């Protein structure tokens, strides 16, 4: 694959990851942070979540189209292939991944329809939010079918698809949930009335994040075997260097989460101002690291472990 295609494909996949992570995490938030927020908190939280949903709800369909178009162009004779009816027909109807792409496009259309049609009732503990959450989750999970796992032997593929699904859903719940948490902490920083609710939300988020990280690790463990088979320590490919970078970044994310949970959250009871300020800063750092981790994941999705 030529470099321009590689760059566009990586960017499109990154935008797709980011948009689905934020959508999934934000839509899931009302289902585990169930208490009623006090008025000032509620408004800020709802406004932050709706803004995020509007933005990533637009990025998701655009990025999936960019991913699809670039993928098709890289398989054919460049961008002109997109105007070749026989090529397009063969891509969607003859290639093994074609029908999965059609499914992903259908899921995208449905998600867009739900986000636009029920925007006033999102996000809350209601049916439209649950439907949008399931659609975003399905879009995350089906990425496995158009990526590296699809190239595995049939006997390994199903297991790795499962691991991939657990991994992405766990990561999206965790990373995407940082956005509403940040809005809450930002409110709590300036408004003492929001401290109790922020503490409650942090507790719920910590429980959810523990489960999410367990899923991330379980999925990773399942996906480990086919990767290890490609490892050549004496001649590491750019893919393996990217994996190493991601390991370091993920380690930093976990270290910050550890400090938030076991040091700063208990501090809320005795020194709320200091705790909230530090938690807010850490959540923002976590978000920045997550953006970089997803960029590295997007690169790994288009690169080959063997170089």
């Amino acid at each position, binding site marked *: *694959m030529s470099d321009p295609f590689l760059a566009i494909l990586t960017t499109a996949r990154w935008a797709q990851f980011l948009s689905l992570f934020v959508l999934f995490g934000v839509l899931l938030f009302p289902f585990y942070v169930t208490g009623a927020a006090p008025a000032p908190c509620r408004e800020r939280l709802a406004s932050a979540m709706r803004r995020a949903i509007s933005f990533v709800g637009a990025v998701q369909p655009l990025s999936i189209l960019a991913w699809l178009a670039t993928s098709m162009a890289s398989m054919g004779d460049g961008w002109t292939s997109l105007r070749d009816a026989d090529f397009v027909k063969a891509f969607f109807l003859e290639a093994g991944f074609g029908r999965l792409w059609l499914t992903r496009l259908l899921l995208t259309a449905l998600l867009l329809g739900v986000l636009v049609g029920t925007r006033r009732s999102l996000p809350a503990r209601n049916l439209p939010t649950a439907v949008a959450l399931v659609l975003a989750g399905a879009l995350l999970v089906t990425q496995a079918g158009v990526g590296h796992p699809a*190239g*595995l032997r049939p006997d390994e593929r199903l297991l790795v698809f499962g691991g991939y699904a657990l991994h992405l859903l766990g990561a999206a719940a965790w990373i995407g949930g940082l956005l509403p948490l940040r809005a809450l902490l930002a409110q709590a920083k300036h408004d003492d009335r929001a401290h109790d609710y922020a503490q409650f939300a942090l507790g719920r988020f910590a429980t959810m994040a523990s489960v999410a990280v367990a899923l991330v690790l379980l999925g990773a463990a399942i996906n480990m075997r086919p990767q290890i088979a490609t490892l050549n320590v004496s001649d590491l490919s750019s893919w393996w260097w990217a*994996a190493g970078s991601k390991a370091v970044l993920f*380690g930093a994310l976990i270290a910050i989460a550890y400090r938030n949970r076991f040091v700063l959250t208990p501090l809320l009871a005795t020194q709320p101002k200091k705790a909230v300020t530090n938690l807010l800063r850490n959540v923002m750092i976590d978000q920045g690291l997550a953006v970089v981790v997803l960029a590295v994941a997007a690169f*790994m999705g288009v690169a*080959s472990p063997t170089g």
Partner: protein
Amino acid sequence: MQEKLRRRTLVSVLSFCAMVESASAHAHLQSANPAPDSIVATAPQEVWIAFSEAVEPSMSAIEIVGVQGPVAATGKAYVDQAAPAALIVKLAQPLPAGAYETRWRCVGKDSHAMRGSYHFEVRP
């Protein structure tokens, strides 16, 4: 005790942290007939290339180019069900003596496209 448990948990978590994207290697050429840079005495009636993983025949292609330009094939490149990693193209006629370039495009089941070319010569 609790602090020790927390540290162990943290170390366990970090030890897994590289495994985010499951991977297979992209398809690459493993062997071919005629072989790259070979001289064959018998004019081939087909060209096949074996890749490192199963390919999508509808998205893959083999083109043979001689000094006169592309050589006609009887149809699109296809995959034998018994060997899903091998792409085959039947030639309309046996190749006359001369130098040829084989240009291939292979799309793996993982949607990744790879391209390449190699030369061979027919010298009866």
